[in-house]
């Protein structure tokens, strides 16, 4: 048996998009065990419920993360709406769906870029982010922010998407679809890209299930889990099937996420075609009193929101379980037996969002 040594990896490391620390036990060039530790960017957003009222918390919840910001704002608002028995207007539900899918689109394109960067394909990285920029433009046009939307409030939405904006979004989608089709060829068919991804970090269906993985990471291992099938917001009225892959390796995860880019484009088109007229928000009276638990599908996987109110403007408790937290166990499993040079790819492959995880 060769000598075992421990190599600290992160929190500052060129390949890491966000700070996570891994203690890697390695034997020769192979990893035997990985021990993660987090806590470098904890901000205590959940305990802000003591000082901020439940309306302000919608803006605080949104700022949990800079990429899946819309989902956090939405998840919080839906939970509070359930506690207060607020019936959200249909138009608001469709608008939320459109924005949610736009945020998924830009998140997945961001991930594709980071993945390309992780396996050392700088040009592909820039191409992905060039396409993503158009999505951000569409988001800025409709909401006023590039990544922080600030359009959700308890009871509905604050802004409308006018017919001209809908037309512009559809044009953006045509552009993104055409460009992504070109980029997909490189991701899926290129020889050198495949040599970095195929058979790397395999996670079987049983392992993924046992470790409680979520989102595209679990779907790539063949588990058909997608909270959007629950039919929240307007998803119940749109046609969709979870995209799964049975490979369980980095290639499978890439395949699932690129498939979801096209799925999001399709969902936005469906939502724009079906959007009804009507109010943007319902009137909300009183304070939340009671508790509720919501599960939604973030770009990175299933996120859970728990809110407990006590009849005062300040909530008793707000709790968020983020998808990256669920996927960290799976990451450590895939790291076992991997080559030292593949760590960068394997960390990026779960689409880590440590800011979400630490809140």
């Amino acid at each position: 048996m060769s000598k075992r040594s421990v190599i600290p990896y992160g929190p500052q490391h060129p390949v890491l998009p966000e700070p996570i620390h891994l203690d890697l036990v390695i034997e020769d060039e192979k990893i035997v065990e990985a021990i993660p530790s987090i806590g470098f960017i904890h901000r205590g957003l959940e305990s802000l419920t003591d000082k901020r009222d439940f309306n302000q918390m919608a803006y605080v919840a949104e700022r949990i993360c800079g990429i899946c910001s819309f989902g956090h704002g939405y998840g919080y608002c839906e939970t509070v709406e359930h506690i207060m028995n607020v019936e959200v207007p249909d138009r608001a539900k469709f608008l939320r769906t459109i924005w949610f899918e736009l945020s998924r689109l830009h998140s997945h394109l961001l991930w594709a870029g980071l993945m390309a960067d992780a396996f050392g394909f700088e040009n592909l990285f820039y191409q992905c982010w060039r396409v993503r920029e158009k999505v951000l433009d569409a988001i800025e046009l409709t909401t006023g922010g590039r990544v922080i939307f600030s359009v959700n409030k308890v009871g509905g939405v604050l802004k409308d998407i006018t017919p001209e904006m809908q037309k512009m979004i559809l044009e953006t989608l045509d552009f993104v679809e055409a460009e992504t089709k070109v980029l997909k060829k490189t991701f899926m068919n290129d020889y050198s890209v495949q040599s970095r991804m195929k058979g790397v970090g395999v996670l079987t269906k049983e392992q993924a299930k046992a470790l409680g993985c979520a989102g595209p990471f679990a779907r790539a291992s063949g588990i058909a889990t997608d909270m959007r099938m629950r039919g929240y917001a307007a998803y119940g009225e749109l046609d969709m099937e979870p995209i799964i892959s049975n490979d369980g390796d980095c290639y499978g995860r890439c395949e699932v996420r690129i498939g979801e880019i096209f799925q999001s484009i399709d969902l936005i088109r469906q939502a724009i075609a079906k959007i009804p007229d009507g109010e943007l928000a319902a009137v909300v009276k009183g304070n939340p009193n009671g508790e509720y638990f919501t599960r939604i599908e973030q770009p990175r996987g299933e996120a859970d929101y728990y809110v407990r109110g006590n009849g005062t403007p300040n909530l008793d408790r707000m709790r968020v379980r983020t998808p990256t937290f669920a996927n960290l166990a799976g990451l450590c499993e895939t790291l076992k037996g991997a080559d030292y040079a593949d760590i960068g790819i394997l960390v990026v492959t779960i689409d880590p969002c440590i800011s979400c995880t630490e809140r």
Partner: protein
Amino acid sequence: MGVMTFAGTALKNLFSKPVTTSYPAEPAEYKERTRGHIEIEIDQCISCGMCTRACPCGTLSIDKIKGTWTINRFDCIACGFCVEKCPKKCLTMVAGYQEPGGEKGEVTYTKSPEVLAEEARKREEMAKKAAEAKKAMEAKKAAEAAAAAAGEKKDN
């Protein structure tokens, strides 16, 4: 399994214009709804304090007597909640982000002297009215007490 799958994109890139713009030589284009920073039409403000209570980061403050509205622009997260809550709609979200500065100072907006004088006059009037109403109330109470005392005496 393909090779040279990126060649088309690379070639196209060679013969096309850059996607990026040379900011700041070329000014940035903002959308109509862009949440850049907050501006106030201070003379329309009624110093109700709704914005200060709405702000999730507590960056706003007002002084009713001095007629000022103060914002620490480096604390502002441009969420737009104050703009939504303002009853007089004198707060607006304007495109163009907060410019960098040497220190994190507060910016104070003060109402014009005419508006301040008008408000002071109204306050005085209100105070006068309130004093008169209080006086009348006291007189009424005193009269009632006297009447009650007289009634009691009569009973005895």
